[in-house]
């Protein structure tokens, strides 16, 4: 059997798992996880075989391509609308393969982890059903070769995200967060759907309306200036979709709230996979963006602004999951910055490493939350490294990775982004990115310090009951720690022309040509070396600052936390405003509340008033006036025969008279 024939299974298995579990999962009780987990296990195996073949070049060449290896399945007809036929097929090319590695591996590990994490929840079966629905949607998203099918998957991941954020449906905050996530995502989707419509119109102008991703982009580029809708508009509309799903400013507000969902969900959907969809989308449409430099600048600017905004907020949050959520935003900002400067490979590289270490950190935080009895506030944690050593060790690896300390994975990908930005002459991106790297190291080790080092600040009764999570949860942590540590060494070397570059070159070479970036050789003992030194230096600086303020406890490295210094620093005149801004998330939630709930609500209420009083009021007034007029005319009907007779006589006179006048009298 060929791999192509197995591709549909990647979708059908999770879909089947979802349907079976959703309809009859309740009867399975505590064994409801078997079908979903096994489905994802098989998916993982199939995906890994396919990925290995694609990346090593063992797979056949894609149709219509000279250098890209991959698999295709389909196409199947979906919407036949006149001359626009929307079909969908599945494609595994190197880019999809990279995404498959992240999605299926982390997906599988999160499924396994959830067996332990959700074991006491009454909605156990429901949770696994939703997870499989999500896996189906996410796999559809990365496999689809058609814009509209991508959009379908786009909305379906949104749906699964809605269901999973609102999983604990009795909590009002969960309901509101789920709603917020869906609606904010819809704002981005609005742009995306218009972008798709624009693509239809443009390709129709080229004589062949199509929504196939590759074909349509080729047509659009070939048409150039002759497109009815300018390419830069199309690119920005598509980017709007990406902004929503990947929570880029100003649509970033939903992601922190999404932490209301169970922690495995935060790890899988809101850190490692779904939020990467925007990055994937732009990487997929890379020639489109590469041909519109102004759109690229917008992408870079939004990305790097989100990076610094989110990092600044992450510095003061006290909820462990929210710190990680803002950190995710910030890292996604990095990826968009990379896309914007034309470093597509670096963006995908960071996507992969970030998927692993952020997934690890979230699952670790879940383990912490479990250990301290569903407490998420870091102010009531501390000193946990002694009680939960495996969680601690794995999270430490994750923190070092995200902080960008060599040779852990985050270092390679982040350094590549900064280096490429510098070399593409986006100095402002590089500068801000460097500063964000400092903040990243700082807030991550603030988190570590508050959580694992120092002394426990929660109730003493809980301290005695804290214990390490069961093996079904710790093993995924360990398995995730391995790529977090080693993925950079595995695919990020040799520097400058890494393995990953080799894999993705066929996907991105068109864009690279369009961008016409200067091809410089990699100089480890020149500019590149200096850049590496700079980023490592700032990372270490951030780390040391965090250690000084929030303490450290690493064998001989030992320092107490200095909360009084933190208080003093945050009260300093210049810093106090920044501190308050960070603590209040730069007031974006309040702004949105004012704009959309208060003002928007008033507008809606006023419109309803308009509807009742003016539109419907007019209708009712016409009805009422008719009745009133009827009453008025009714008064003429006196009931007296003589009045009627008078009327008849007068009428007769008028008729006869006018006859005489009109005909000029009797002849």
């Amino acid at each position, binding site marked *: 059997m060929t791999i192509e024939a197995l591709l549909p299974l990647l979708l059908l298995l999770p879909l089947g798992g979802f349907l079976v579990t959703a309809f009859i999962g309740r009867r399975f009780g505590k064994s409801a996880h078997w079908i979903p987990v096994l489905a994802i296990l098989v998916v993982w195996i199939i995906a890994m075989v396919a990925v290995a073949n694609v990346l090593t070049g063992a797979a056949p060449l894609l149709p219509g391509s000279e250098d890209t290896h991959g698999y295709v399945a389909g196409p199947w007809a979906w919407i036949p609308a006149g001359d626009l036929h929307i079909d969908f097929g599945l494609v595994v090319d190197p880019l999809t393969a990279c995404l498959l590695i992240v999605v299926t591996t982390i997906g599988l590990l999160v499924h396994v982890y959830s067996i332990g994490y959700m074991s006491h929840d009454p909605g156990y079966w429901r949770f696994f059903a939703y997870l499989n629905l999500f896996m189906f949607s996410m796999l559809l998203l990365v496999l689809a070769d058609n814009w509209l099918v991508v959009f379908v998957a786009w909305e379906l991941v949104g749906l699964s995200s809605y269901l999973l954020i609102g999983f604990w449906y009795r909590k009002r905050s969960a309901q509101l967060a789920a709603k917020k996530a869906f609606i904010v995502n819809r704002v981005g989707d609005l742009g995306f759907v218009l972008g798709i419509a624009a693509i239809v119109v443009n390709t129709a102008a080229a004589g062949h309306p199509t929504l196939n991703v590759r074909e349509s982009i080729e047509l659009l580029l070939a048409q150039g200036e002759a497109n009815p809708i300018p390419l830069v508009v199309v690119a920005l509309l598509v980017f709007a979709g990406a902004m929503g799903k990947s929570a880029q400013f100003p649509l970033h507000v939903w992601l922190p709230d999404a932490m209301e969902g169970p922690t495995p969900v935060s790890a899988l959907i809101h850190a490692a996979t779904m939020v990467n969809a925007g990055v994937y989308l732009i990487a997929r449409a890379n020639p489109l963006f590469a041909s519109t430099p102004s759109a690229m600048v917008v992408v870079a600017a939004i990305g790097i602004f989100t990076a610094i905004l989110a990092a600044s907020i992450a510095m003061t949050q006290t909820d462990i999951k929210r710190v990680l959520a803002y950190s995710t935003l910030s890292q996604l900002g990095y990826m968009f910055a990379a896309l914007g400067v034309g470093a597509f490979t670096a963006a995908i590289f960071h996507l992969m490493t970030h998927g692993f270490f952020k997934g690890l950190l979230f699952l670790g935080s879940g383990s912490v939350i479990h250990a301290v009895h569903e407490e998420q506030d870091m102010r009531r944690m501390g000193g946990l490294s002694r009680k939960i050593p495996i969680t601690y060790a794995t999270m430490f690896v994750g923190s070092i990775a995200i902080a960008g300390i060599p040779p852990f994975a985050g270092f390679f990908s982040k350094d590549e982004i900064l280096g490429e930005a510098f070399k593409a002459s986006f100095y402002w991106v590089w500068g801000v990115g460097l500063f964000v790297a400092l903040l990243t190291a700082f807030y991550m080790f603030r988190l570590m310090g508050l959580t694992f080092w120092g002394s426990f600040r929660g109730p003493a009764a809980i301290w005695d009951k804290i214990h390490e999570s069961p093996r079904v949860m710790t093993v995924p942590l360990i398995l995730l720690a391995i790529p977090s540590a080693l993925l950079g060494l595995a695919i990020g070397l040799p520097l400058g022309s890494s393995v990953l570059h080799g894999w993705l070159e066929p996907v991105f070479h068109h864009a690279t040509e369009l961008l016409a970036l200067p091809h410089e050789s990699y100089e480890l003992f020149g500019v590149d070396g200096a850049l590496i030194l700079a980023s490592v230096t700032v990372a270490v600086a951030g780390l040391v600052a965090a250690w000084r303020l929030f303490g450290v406890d690493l064998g001989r490295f030992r320092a107490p936390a200095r909360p009084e210094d933190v208080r003093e620093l945050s009260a300093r005149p210049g810093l106090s405003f920044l501190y308050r801004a960070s603590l209040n998330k730069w007031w974006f939630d309040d702004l949105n509340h004012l704009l959309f709930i208060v003002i928007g609500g008033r507008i809606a209420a006023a419109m309803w008033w308009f509807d009742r009083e003016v539109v419907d009021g007019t209708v009712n007034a016409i009805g009422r006036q008719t009745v009133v007029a009827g009453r008025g005319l009714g008064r003429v*009907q*006196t*009931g*007296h*025969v*003589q009045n009627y*007779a*008078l009327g008849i*006589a007068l009428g007769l006179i008028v008729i006869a008279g006018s006859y005489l006048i009109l005909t000029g009298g009797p002849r």
Partner: protein
Amino acid sequence: MSDSLDTYLILSGILFAIGSFGFLARRNAISMLMSIELMLNAVNLAIVAFGVFGAGPDASAQGAVFALMVMAVAAAEATVGLAIVIAIYRNKKTPLVDEYDAMRQ
């Protein structure tokens, strides 16, 4: 002058006008019925006059027949009308039509 059609028609018109004024202006139901009779007779006069001055071979006879017909109908009508007026009078205790507003309800 006295022997022309116009003279009779003018007389008929005057009678009709008096009748219709009576019908519209009088309040007593009996007077109104009498006014109706007056109008009918005005018409009769006109018909007979047309018959006498008409051109046909036996126009005069036709006019007379019509006039007799109208008289018969008028008699029947007056009977019915009087019956109704008396019925209402028994009910309302008044011959004045101002009080008759049953049609309003």
